[in-house]
């Protein structure tokens, strides 16, 4: 095969950069993934079918994907609002609030999980109040979604924020001068223009939520069939020395994630045609 850049490029060091790219991708991504595939193949097709048809496993997949999807969707809404506030708002300590956004990235996930549980457990003031009013959070799928929102929110904010900052005020003024209301300006001009960054924020938040373990396990309560997520099942299998079973689950989770991400990327490519190509 003949490797070269799309067009003849004046970029120096093509060979070197290709080497570094292939080497690092192989070492960090491909090698562990192939090991995973290799190990899971020991189970054979029948092993896959057997593991994946267990009701407990199916329930875990359902809980994981539906919670991650919900969390990512809520994060999109919250993220846009927060990004808007950070870009357009003028308030004291703006830089401090801005720095606060990244905190979930830095926090050990177990710490966030314990903190959220402490806040929303039925015996805590806030969690107790919510539970009394028919809205229990900890140890229900809601708790899982909440933890996923917590870890995913910075992805949406950090993706939308620069796009919004780049959005020229002229565009909103133009829409306004043409008779559009604030709402029409938002839905027909601002949001469509932010769509690529919203989509990539959504993708990142969604994939992070799918693989999340540390912050979820504490608040989820891990009741089989109800609040058990796939990553927890994988750990459970590992702890009972069923490594092959664990890799079967891991490969299935990865495949499903990959398919969803691929679909989102297709969507993104469709929107990309408006942007300068």
């Amino acid at each position: 095969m003949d490797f070269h850049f799309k067009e003849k490029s004046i970029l120096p060091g093509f060979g070197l950069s290709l080497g570094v790219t292939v080497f690092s991708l192989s070492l960090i991504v491909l090698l562990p993934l192939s090991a995973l595939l290799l190990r899971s193949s020991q189970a054979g097709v029948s092993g896959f079918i057997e593991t994946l048809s267990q009701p407990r496993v199916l329930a875990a997949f359902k809980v994981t994907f539906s919670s991650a999807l919900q969390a990512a969707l809520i994060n999109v809404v919250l993220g846009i609002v927060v990004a808007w506030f950070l870009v357009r708002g003028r308030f004291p300590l703006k830089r401090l609030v801005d720095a606060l956004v990244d905190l979930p990235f830095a926090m050990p996930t177990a710490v966030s999980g314990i903190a959220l549980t402490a806040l929303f457990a039925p015996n805590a003031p806030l969690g107790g109040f919510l539970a009394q009013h028919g809205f229990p959070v900890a140890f229900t799928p809601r708790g899982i979604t909440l933890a996923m929102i917590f870890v995913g929110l910075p992805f949406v904010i950090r993706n939308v924020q620069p796009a919004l900052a780049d959005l020229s005020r002229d565009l909103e003024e133009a829409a306004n001068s043409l008779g559009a209301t604030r709402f029409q300006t938002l839905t027909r001009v601002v949001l469509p223009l932010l769509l690529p960054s919203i989509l990539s924020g959504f993708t990142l938040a969604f994939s992070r939520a799918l693989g999340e373990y540390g912050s979820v396990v504490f608040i989820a309560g891990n009741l089989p069939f109800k609040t058990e997520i796939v990553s927890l099942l994988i750990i459970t299998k590992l702890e009972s020395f069923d490594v092959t079973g664990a890799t079967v689950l891991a490969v299935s989770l990865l495949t499903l994630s990959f398919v969803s991400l691929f679909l989102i990327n297709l969507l993104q490519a469709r929107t990309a045609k408006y942007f300068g190509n």
Partner: protein
Amino acid sequence: MSITIQNVSKTFGTFKALQNINLKVASGSLTALLGPSGSGKTTLLRIVAGLESVDEESGGEIHFDGSAVTANPVNQRQVGFVFQHYALFRHMTVFENIAFGLKVKPRKERLSKEEIKDRVFELLKLIQLEQLADRFPSQLSGGQRQRVALARALAVQPKVLLLDEPFGALDAQVRTELRRWLRHLHDTIHVTSLFVTHDQEEALEVADSIVVMNKGEIEQVGAPNEVFQNPATEFVMKFLGDVNVFHGRIHDDRGVFTDEHKGGDENVRLLVRPHDLDIRLSPGEGVSLPAKVYRVLIIGPLVKVELLNSQNQLIQVQISHETYQMTPVKADQQVYLVPKSSRVYGDGAVDYAI
């Protein structure tokens, strides 16, 4: 639709962008707001559009055809606004951009799909871009984008058309072409138009009427020729073209050139345009100012001669190629300058012309 601006002031923090502006723009005219950057011309345009509010304590008002629109927000003012950097919606085609204003109207007032299509194609024809209806803005040249922006603004049949440095981002050739085209367009549709520019040539060439602004105030309002020939202030004269400044004094109610600083009542400045100076090889009768040729620039049909006077100040003279060939001069040659006309500004000088 005439525009009346009454006692309008605008302050940004401590900066006075506009100070008590009063102006009437005649219905159907094409008026230029001309001034250097920071003169408040764009702020004034944005206030007329409703994109900026009037300082409340000033009690200023904007009227369209006699009825106050000061309290109307921009989306109810029915103005067409054209931005310097086009501000086209890049996720929409040319067609969708132009149709935008028609599609966001409340259902009762909205035209049917076919009517919108007809109207958009009518406008595309007007801007001569019918074949580009399905293109995205990123596929158009700067001049084409600005024409689309203009069509988009005209689609809603605005009461007034406001243009903020519409040709500022274009290169020289496209600019001249679009200027001519804008004038032609205005002669076809007669919508009252107000445009901002810092280019005096553009204002002189396109506008029916020029409003010269400086430091948040209006210096002069008038027809292009009048503003150019009879500048009301020294600022206007300097802004509308190159000028040479000479020292002078008032003698018998006339401005008199004094070649050197002599003190005393030498308190006025005489301003002479480069084309109002003749070059003579020997001193003649009347005023003739000695100067030495510094260099000669031949620019097509024009010849620009730069000279230095006894105080080493640069003087610019502009003559035709023909005149230059009759009396050719070269660097370091001693010559004499004869002003054909000058204007006097300065302490106590009202308006003396010789």
